[in-house]
């Protein structure tokens, strides 16, 4: 029975190397055509009218003036009279017109009368929340007794607000009908699963829906569904008999197309005289908009902490529902837990790394974390440079160090890949996956090239189209494991078939043959061999085509990683401004396919982490119920000069590679909020209880005020 495995370390030509991403040239020259760049002939532009009220009932809607306007092709009411609107930005009507400007004019001509109803958008004030509901309580051991006898206890109320995905390419699609066949150029993370969802809503068979996503401008967990605007876009195109482009305006993108749930908690944690954690009690709440939100995993990483009680309250608000945001629930759980543990270490008079090390047996992977803490501390010169909390310098600018640990799963998803070897030696893979910017196209090519002993330019990868074999949505760091495993299995099987044809010519058994360096030869006697081209010519007139699947046989992938990050910050205690000077990330992820792209994922996680630690938050206005910063001026992303020096250490090589491929997109974005908050506490001597660490919150903490969340 055929087995599947990765080549031994000394036989790898591609895996673990650092080739540049294959679509780099088309992206850096602007030649890459994203879904929102598609301009088919006869294209109409569509725009959506949204509710200005956070809670209202539609009394009347009159679209007659819009319909009468020159250039307007279709006016479509999404939510008509009597509909109850539950968040500002909810979709009311859509227009398809000859240009974007005409479509915008038409939206202004639609008259909607609303009965405005009471709304609630400020979930940090849980006691005033009309719809708050208990959402789980768990207890283990005897927390009350443990707190009563503990050596030191801290109690904190901490939190982080909702924030936006802020994909640079907004959500949307170009829909074109040819008879009852629909083609959708969608900005999606889910090429293989989208067709069925469009089909159900539109009443056509899924086999008649084509999804294409050659490139897409960011998803981060928010682009798994056609969404209402996708279905509306398809309906407009069907009614108009013309292709329709519908992408959200930026304010809509920020308001309705993706947010991360908030998380607040009142937490008590206690330790004994040896600095061992003995008790935990958390009362958490949060919101993901109208649906509320579930509980984050508390206590995070130190999940075997004895004597613990957790309660959670879900708080619905009149805001659009949240979506999976890179490492769902983990950044929140990490901040809430690591901030409290850091405060407890200070209360105990312990170096926080020492305190974490004393408690690693409460985690799922103590050896990994111990090694990583050691490496990170070394990189940061922690032993020489860390000092207990408080001002350590003259003047306004104080410096501090903070640490955090995190975990993630990252097992490869379901994936099918067709690999074809042509008689002329051409090799190609077809896979219904998508490259959302992580480098999926490149790593599939590396696996192909590695297996057949070829160079990257000698293999071809086709993805981003649902005519290719089903491969899972890109979420939860599941793509790299899924696509590399299915590709490797298909490629190994296809190669075996080729070798069966080549073996007689080399007077050897197929099992004795290797494909390396563009040749096929007898293992141990490389003089007995032929070029790859000659080898492929032996297969006859028809190509060999094999499908590989994941899951499947052979230890190609696994899951479960740990990571450690250290932040170094400067805080100006006169202005409250925090600057991240340096971020260090130590991360394991099993076998790395492309070192350069893997490092890019970690750098990206750190940078996004600086953003949500210092700047990013949804700011809903309690009076109007609308977001005050549904734009990019006041919803601030971290810029090039904001992120400090970034250093990444990948745990790779013997001892790690044997685990196989594990996903990496999520883990590095989990710790930055906690590590940066801890560094600020170290610098200024007090905890700033809320993220992001804006100047007002820092100054409030320094003044001894809890401050507004």
């Amino acid at each position, binding site marked *: 029975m055929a087995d599947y495995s990765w080549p031994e370390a000394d036989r790898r030509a591609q895996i673990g190397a650092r080739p540049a991403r294959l679509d780099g040239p088309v992206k850096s020259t*602007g030649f890459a055509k994203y879904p929102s760049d598609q301009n088919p002939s006869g294209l109409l532009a569509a725009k959506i009218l949204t509710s200005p009220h956070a809670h209202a009932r539609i009394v009347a809607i009159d679209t007659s003036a819009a319909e009468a306007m020159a250039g307007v092709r279709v006016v479509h009411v999404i939510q008509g009279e009597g509909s109850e609107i539950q968040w500002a930005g909810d979709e009311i009507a859509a227009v398809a017109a000859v240009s*974007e400007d005409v479509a915008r004019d038409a939206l202004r001509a639609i008259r909607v009368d609303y009965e405005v109803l009471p709304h609630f958008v400020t979930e940090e004030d849980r006691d005033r929340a009309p719809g708050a509901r208990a959402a789980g309580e768990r207890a283990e051991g005897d927390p009350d007794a443990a707190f009563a006898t503990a050596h030191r206890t801290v109690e904190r109320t901490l939190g982080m607000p909702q924030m936006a995905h802020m994909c640079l390419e907004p959500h949307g699609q170009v829909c074109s009908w040819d008879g009852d066949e629909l083609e959708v150029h969608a900005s999606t993370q889910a090429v293989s699963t989208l067709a069925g969802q469009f089909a159900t809503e539109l009443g056509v068979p899924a086999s008649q829906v084509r999804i294409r996503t050659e490139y897409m401008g960011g998803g981060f967990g928010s682009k798994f569904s056609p969404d209402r605007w996708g279905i509306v876009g398809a309906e407009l195109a069907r009614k108009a008999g013309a292709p329709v482009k519908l992408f959200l305006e930026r304010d809509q993108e920020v308001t309705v197309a993706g947010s991360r749930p908030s998380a607040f908690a009142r937490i008590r944690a206690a330790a004994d005289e040896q600095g061992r954690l003995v008790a935990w009690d958390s009362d958490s709440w949060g919101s993901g908009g109208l649906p509320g939100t579930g509980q984050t995993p508390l206590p995070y990483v130190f999940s075997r902490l004895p004597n613990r009680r957790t309660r959670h309250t879900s708080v619905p608000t009149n805001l659009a529902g949240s979506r999976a945001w890179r490492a769902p629930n983990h950044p929140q759980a990490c901040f809430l837990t690591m901030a409290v543990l850091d405060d407890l270490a200070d209360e105990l008079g312990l170096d926080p790394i020492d305190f974490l090390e004393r408690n690693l047996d409460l985690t799922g992977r103590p050896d990994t974390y111990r090694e990583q803490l050691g490496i990170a501390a070394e990189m940061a010169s922690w032993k020489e440079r860390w000092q207990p909390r408080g001002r350590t310098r003259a003047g306004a600018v104080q410096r501090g160090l903070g640490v955090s640990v995190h975990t993630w799963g990252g097992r490869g998803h379901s994936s099918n890949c067709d690999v074809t070897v042509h008689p002329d030696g051409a090799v190609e893979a077809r896979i219904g996956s998508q490259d959302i910017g992580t480098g999926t196209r490149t790593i599939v090519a590396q696996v192909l090239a590695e297996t057949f002993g070829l160079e990257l330019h000698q293999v071809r990868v086709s993805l981003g189209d649902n005519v290719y074999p089903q491969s899972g949505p890109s979420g939860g760091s599941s793509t790299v494991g899924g696509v590399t495993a299915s590709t490797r299995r298909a490629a190994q099987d296809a190669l075996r078939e080729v070798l069966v044809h080549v073996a007689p010519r080399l007077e050897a058994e197929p099992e004795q043959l290797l494909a390396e360096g563009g040749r096929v030869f007898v293992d141990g006697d490389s003089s007995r061999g032929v070029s790859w081209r000659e080898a492929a010519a032996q297969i006859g007139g028809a190509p060999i085509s094999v499908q590989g699947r994941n899951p499947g046989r052979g230890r190609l992938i696994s899951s479960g990683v740990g990571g450690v990050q250290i932040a170094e910050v400067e805080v100006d205690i006169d202005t409250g401004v925090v600057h991240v000077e340096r971020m260090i990330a130590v991360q394991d992820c099993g076998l790395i396919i492309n070192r350069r792209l893997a490092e890019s994922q970690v750098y990206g996680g750190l940078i996004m982490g600086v953003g949500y630690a210092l700047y990013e938050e949804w700011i809903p206005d309690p009076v109007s119920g609308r977001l005050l910063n549904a734009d990019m001026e006041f919803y601030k992303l971290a810029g090039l*000069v904001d992120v400090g020096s970034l250093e990444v250490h990948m745990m790779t090589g013997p001892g790690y590679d044997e685990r196989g491929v594990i996903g990496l997109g999520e883990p590095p974005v989990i710790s930055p909020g906690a590590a940066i908050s801890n560094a600020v506490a170290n610098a200024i001597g007090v905890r700033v209880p809320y993220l992001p660490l804006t100047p007002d919150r820092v100054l409030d903490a320094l003044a001894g005020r809890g401050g507004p969340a």
Partner: protein
Amino acid sequence: MKGRRVTDDAKRSGFSRRSFLRGGAAGALSGGLTTGLLTGEAGAAAADSEATETVGPGPVDVELEVNGATHRLAVEPRVTLLDGLRDRLDVTGPKRVCDRGTCGACTVLEDGRPIYACSRLMIESAGRSITTVEGLGSPDAMHDVQQAFVDNDAQQCGFCTPGFVVATAALLARHPAPSEPEIEAGLGGNFCRCGTYKGIRAVIAGGEGGGVSGG
């Protein structure tokens, strides 16, 4: 402003860039001024300047050069340079992200100077020469900056990349070895969501794949 070419085709288009500029000091400020210019400042200026013409709201003929090719088209005065490029000329390298002069994804060169195409009306660019990211190089013949973006993995999803490439090319053309304040001034107006700044830093400073610093 030197080296700028002006197409003064008032007879055909009913719109004269030269008279428009003469009409109000606001016009000379160019960058950053968008809507309201024609009906507001310029309109007020018209009261004491006989030369100013009012155009629109209907389509106005404009002629401009984009990546070396001359285009003549009729656009409504309200159409931004970005939307005109993307929707009318199918030049889709410049991306529409914030659409209000914050994120830099639409950065193009106008007569060699970087501007936000979302914050310029297409009629303002009449008679000028626009270079987008596609005009700097092609996948088979990349500009040095584009090659350095590839070599240093200064891109992930790639949606901010066209703006960053143009802004970086403009920065390095002006400051081959830019100081930190020059980097901040040159690239502080561009944002990336995937987090590619480490690679972009390497492009400027010369990293793994070699930067373009110094020329």
